[in-house]
């Protein structure tokens, strides 16, 4: 190859062209074209997404991409949301922050999901990045309001502070007062997860007052209904608003003040919050309902008639999150009123109750599938299902991309025929050709996995619980699902055979989680030995896995691809099957 080709572009031109390429996939493709493109691309990559913080080390990222301005990291496996991952497992962000503090002085955006973030980490962020703009802590934990105070005080141009679903040690509401008077740049503030009874409300009001670009504000439960009007009048430009608790004694002046405040928000499209709802205050929303595209009522313990009334005012609704108090009747109303609906999530009001407390069955979901042709994303908790209903849903909604069904009692069969639900889920994967995410429940045999392996070619994430008969089930999935990235399995009779036969597949995936299955310690060791590109970690809180025979099944297993080798921060109950590590033990 000649060193200078007549038709090659100068670097600046290529850089300029590359700046229009935002998606990671495309950027990765660009970097593979030739060495010079690789070099140019890596110097101008500004955004990095790391789906598993242990797949690569901070140093490796910094070495390859020296000029990053925005980073997104994910830590714990998804099943950590349901307490299957013990505390202390890992996902610490501190080392990342420490290394980036030195290498990326211009880092402006940090987005973390399921990571352990300490006050020390937050203080380090506050100190190290002069141009810090965006902090999103999604389902994180380990920090307190002291750490938030450091961020508020130091980040002069903070645009976004989003703590959604994180666990914060609420020491004092006064951290909000740490935002200096000169801070006017906030665009998004989500403090809905904070528990404190003393959110410094006056500090919040003043902050909202001086931030004219504030578009998204989610208050926490401690903020009372009578305070909402004050906030909204200071921020009529809001597009996305989360109330605090929505309860008060019905008083006409409070009501009209609230209704007036809502109606002055001409841009408001999305609402959430609604803890402790007093239904009589819902009509205060009616003036903005026609514009609403997203409504999160998943904490609102209101009954179906009130929900129906509200929803019938929202013809443009695209996204609805709600408790199963909505019942089949409410969903039927939704199906007839909200033709633009794309996403529906129905959560259980009484997940541990044995008898159904509400009249929500498969009928509600069938009605929505019939009435809402744009439906793409479903999360549905219910207590009974039938193959016939699933087939109907599949045929009505071929555009589904995410389908998560949770039938509350494990191994529940088709309530009409008492058959397994294999055929129903089979219809889902067969008809919904763009399905990317699927969660299974109910009584399921190996057959359902055969369908999934055959039809689920675009499936990227699969969650399985209490299903299957044998290794064949797992084998179908691993050998058939070409796009599979994340697989999480609990309480299934899947063992060594399928895992070992498909070991190479694991290198093409982000991660595999298996708990309470039948994978032996010996198989784990073998995988760790033979597959150097995988980290194979066994989790056992009761005793070391090698204190038992090799044929003994492990409690929990987490396998993920990594170029960083085994991690250094494993707690005593996590064992790496990497050979090198074993020698050091």
């Amino acid at each position: 190859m000649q060193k200078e080709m007549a038709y090659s572009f100068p670097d600046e031109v290529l850089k300029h062209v590359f700046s229009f390429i935002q998606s990671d996939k495309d950027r990765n493709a660009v970097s593979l074209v030739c060495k010079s493109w690789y070099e140019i691309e890596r110097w101008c990559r500004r955004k990095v997404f790391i789906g598993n913080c242990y797949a690569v080390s901070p140093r490796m990222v910094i070495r390859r991409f020296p000029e990053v301005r925005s980073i997104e990291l994910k830590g714990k496996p998804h099943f950590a949301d349901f307490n299957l991952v013990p505390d202390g497992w890992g996902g610490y962000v501190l080392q990342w922050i420490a290394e980036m503090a030195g290498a990326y002085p211009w880092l402006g955006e940090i987005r973390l999901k399921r990571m352990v973030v300490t006050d020390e980490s937050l203080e380090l962020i506050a100190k190290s990045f002069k141009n810090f703009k965006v902090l999103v802590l999604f389902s994180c934990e380990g920090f307190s309001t002291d750490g938030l105070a450091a961020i508020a005080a130091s980040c002069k141009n903070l645009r976004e502070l989003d703590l959604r679903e994180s666990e914060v040690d609420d020491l004092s509401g006064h951290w909000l007062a740490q935002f200096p008077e000169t801070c006017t740049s906030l665009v998004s503030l989500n403090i809905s997860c904070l528990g404190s009874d003393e959110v410094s409300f006056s500090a919040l009001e003043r902050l909202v007052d001086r931030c004219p670009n504030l578009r998204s504000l989610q208050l926490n439960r401690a903020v009372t209904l009578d305070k909402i009007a004050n906030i909204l009048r200071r921020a009529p430009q809001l597009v996305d608003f989360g109330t605090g608790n929505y309860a008060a004694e019905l008083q006409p002046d409070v009501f009209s003040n609230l209704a007036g405040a809502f109606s002055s928000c001409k841009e408001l499209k999305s609402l959430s919050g609604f803890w402790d709802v007093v239904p009589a205050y819902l009509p205060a929303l009616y003036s903005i309902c026609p514009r609403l595209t997203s409504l999160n009522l998943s904490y609102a313990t209101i009954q179906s008639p009130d929900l129906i009334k509200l929803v019938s005012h929202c013809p443009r609704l695209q996204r609805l999150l709600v408790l199963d108090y909505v019942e089949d009747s409410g969903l039927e109303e939704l199906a007839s009123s909200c033709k633009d609906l794309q996403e529906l999530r129905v959560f259980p009001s009484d997940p541990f109750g044995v008898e159904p407390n509400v009249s929500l069955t498969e009928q509600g979901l069938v009605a929505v599938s019939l009435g809402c042709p744009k439906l793409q994303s479903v999360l549905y908790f219910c207590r009974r299902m039938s193959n016939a209903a699933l087939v109907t849903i599949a045929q009505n909604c071929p555009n589904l991309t995410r389908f998560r069904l949770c039938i509350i009692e494990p191994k529940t069969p088709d309530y009409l025929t008492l058959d397994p639900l294999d055929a129903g889920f089979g219809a889902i994967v067969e008809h919904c050709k763009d399905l990317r995410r699927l969660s299974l429940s109910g009584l399921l045999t190996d057959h359902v996995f055969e369908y999934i392996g055959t039809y689920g070619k675009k499936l990227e994430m699969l969650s399985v619980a209490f299903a299957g008969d044998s290794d064949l089930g797992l084998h179908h999935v691993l050998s058939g699902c070409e796009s599979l990235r994340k697989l999480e399995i609990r309480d299934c009779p899947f063992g060594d055979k399928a895992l070992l036969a498909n070991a190479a597949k694991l290198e093409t995936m982000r991660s595999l989680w298996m708990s309470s299955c039948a994978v032996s310690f010996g198989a784990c060791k073998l995988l760790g030995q033979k597959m150097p590109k995988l980290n194979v970690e066994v989790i056992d809180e009761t005793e070391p896995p090698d204190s038992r025979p090799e044929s003994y099944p492990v409690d929990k297993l987490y396998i993920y691809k990594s170029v960083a080798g085994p991690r250094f921060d494993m707690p005593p109950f996590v064992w790496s099957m990497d050979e090198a590590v074993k020698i050091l033990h």
Partner: protein
Amino acid sequence: MENDLNLKATELRLGLPGSDEPERQMIPRPNKRTLSDIVSEGSTSTTEEDHQDTAPPAKVQIVGWPPVRSYRKNCLQGKKDEVEGGTGMYVKVSVDGAPYLRKIDLKVYRSYPQLLLALENMFKLTIGAYSEREGYNGSDYAPTYEDRDGDWMLVGDVPWEMFISSCKRLRIMKGSEARGLGCV
């Protein structure tokens, strides 16, 4: 339809090369309840008859099922109370001498014996029996808890319902230290 994974065709197998894969049995772990112990057939029974010797009598919830996040579960309970700990849902458990905290969901347990058994299993220690007069004297460890008023009490001093509604966090103390608490 294949009913054999043709394991020999793959490189990876357990056992020495040249020997056939030994037949492996599933060895149940001691104290581990199998799924059939935990989950009753069909849907609605809550009675004691489902369980065998080692399992506690009432239907105990399966960890992490249904898959609902803890902050959601907590929100549906005490409406005005704080999300974390105030109504006896997820509470932190610390053990003297152990570096890691654990969190447990008190709602999963129906009685003190169930809770104590779970703690013993989780931390591999013995707590022994509670007696009104002597607390946990004679045990290596004694479970204590911090209640809503900030006082540290011996687990078992108050009726169960009162305990779970007021317990904010648990601390399993070394037996010697716990003698200051409780009734003695």
